[in-house]
């Protein structure tokens, strides 16, 4: 996505979402959270998301809804937000993506680029 250099679009990469991501979200009008996902039947899903309870599923990390809740409660900002979930096929320890995951990623990327272009216009 960074290589596409879309005007007005910033990219950030995190291992886990956390408190300070609420500050980053508060500074933008539109936020798209992107991650690999289990249990999908399609190459990817794209869903609207709203601020939600800050109960982390595993402690230090926050979910996208909780990050948005931090932005809303602490900074009074509620950016429009989506989650782009890309279907993964193997989550075992290893290198690189499976071929199927690579295809899903490519499809999701093209979709996201078009979505962001439309959102800017």
């Amino acid at each position, binding site marked *: 996505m960074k290589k596409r250099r879309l005007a007005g679009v910033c990219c950030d*990469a*995190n*291992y*886990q979402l*956390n*408190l*300070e991501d*609420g*500050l980053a979200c508060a500074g933008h009008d539109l936020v798209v959270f992107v991650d690999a996902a289990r249990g999908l039947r399609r190459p990817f899903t794209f869903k609207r998301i709203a601020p939600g*309870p*800050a*109960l*982390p*599923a*595993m*402690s*230090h*990390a*926050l979910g996208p809804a*909780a990050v948005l*809740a*931090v932005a809303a*409660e*602490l900074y009074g900002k509620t950016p429009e937000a989506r989650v782009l979930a890309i279907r993964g096929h193997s*989550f075992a*320890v290893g290198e690189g993506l499976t071929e199927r995951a690579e295809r899903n990623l490519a499809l999701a990327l093209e979709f996201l680029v078009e979505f962001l272009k439309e959102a800017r216009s």
Partner: protein
Amino acid sequence: MGQKITIEPVTRVEGHGKVTIRLDDAGKVIQSRFHIVEFRGFERFVQGRPYWEAPVLVQRLCGICPVSHHLASAKAMDVVVGAGPGKLTATAEKMRRLMHYGQMLQSHALHFFHLSSPDFLLGMDADPAVRNIIGIIALDKELATRAVLLRKFGQEIIEATAGKKIHGTGAIPGGINKNLSPEERDRFLKGPEPLTADRMIEWSAAAIELFRDYHRKNKDLVDGFAQFPSNHLSLVRKDGALDFYHGVLRAVDADGRKVLDDVDYQDYLEHIGEEVRPWSYMKFPYLRALGKADGWYRVGPLARLNTCDYVPSPLAQKEFETYRAYTDGKPNNMSLHTHWARLIELLHSAEVIRDLLRDKDLQGTKLVKTGRRVPEGVGLVEAPRGTLFHHYRVNDDDQITMANLIVSTTNNNEPMNRAVNWVAMNVLSEKPVITEGMLNRVEVAIRAYDPCLSCATHALGRMPLEVTLLGADGRVLQRKVR
């Protein structure tokens, strides 16, 4: 009919674990265990990989303290390339220190404000729906803002030294791959406000005062909760100073007598054993000098302030003196005082960051040293949660043939079990009704150690944790899953 309690997942700790508490027919606790239910994979995963990949690969077992793994691994590989302790260039060592103290700052701030302060400021019996960071925001926006910015400042220090704020590549065998530009230095020293080192020092000092105020009002709870004697282990600088990046191994017993007297950690296997118990995937380390039964020890902030002689920064030293005076200079064995110790370390980290930023060596250009290649190396650091051991063997083809990691949470395995047992015996035993607040106290006991179970088990993916109450016949009476 007897009973058994399981708490799963324990929230606000990292990874996947399970607490099981077994009760007899009268509701009296007869056994408590803190299990880890994931497997260890990274030690096998790195086998066959070139040694220079290890510092980048191993940090992926953790999303919270990857810098600790990055640096412990790099230190082990320094030894392998003949540039072990004392041989790095000044720029390389100080850049690594800055990276590490940046991580201590962000991790300690995250733990206290995000994970622990809800228990203190909102109450252990508060509705779990609000006993979290959003509840803290509603209670005190200024405090929550500081939490966000302390964490952000630490993350940006990491990014400037490691190349990325998560899973960076800065440390390489024998040195570092970048220095700190004057622009980066000035940004951290001069701002824009409030993201300056001086402001982080001010806020860290205020956090200590916040905890002390809570302590003054809740002395019995803070002093008595999960208090039990133990040995304590950490690295200390050769002169006895607190040091998170490098030093010698020191252990003291519950009365302060030295059990390990400042030994070289390259010889850790002579001093540290790892016991396997059939009910847990996580090993139980112990001091060989004291044996399996008596040799278990604590690591982390509480242990570090028990083993060191002083703190080498002025404001934190002053706080350390107050802290040590509270136990008349004897080791502090009170689990909740870990938070006090952690905040003193937060202040110390902020002071060290400021001092390092003022050091011109960070703009040096001599970044890497090499020497005589050897087949084996051990690297230790004091991670936020405690002493972290990385040990590798490398063959003539530069491939890793053996890796042994003893992570902080594994070192605290027995103490966390003891803390859970204290709560089981003192809070849950023989009570007619087990409330959510009572079960939360089990989590509070574990949380004091800020465990990272994904590190301890070297697991990836989704890692929850649960608490279950079981009867003597094995029937599940209550299960807490968030």
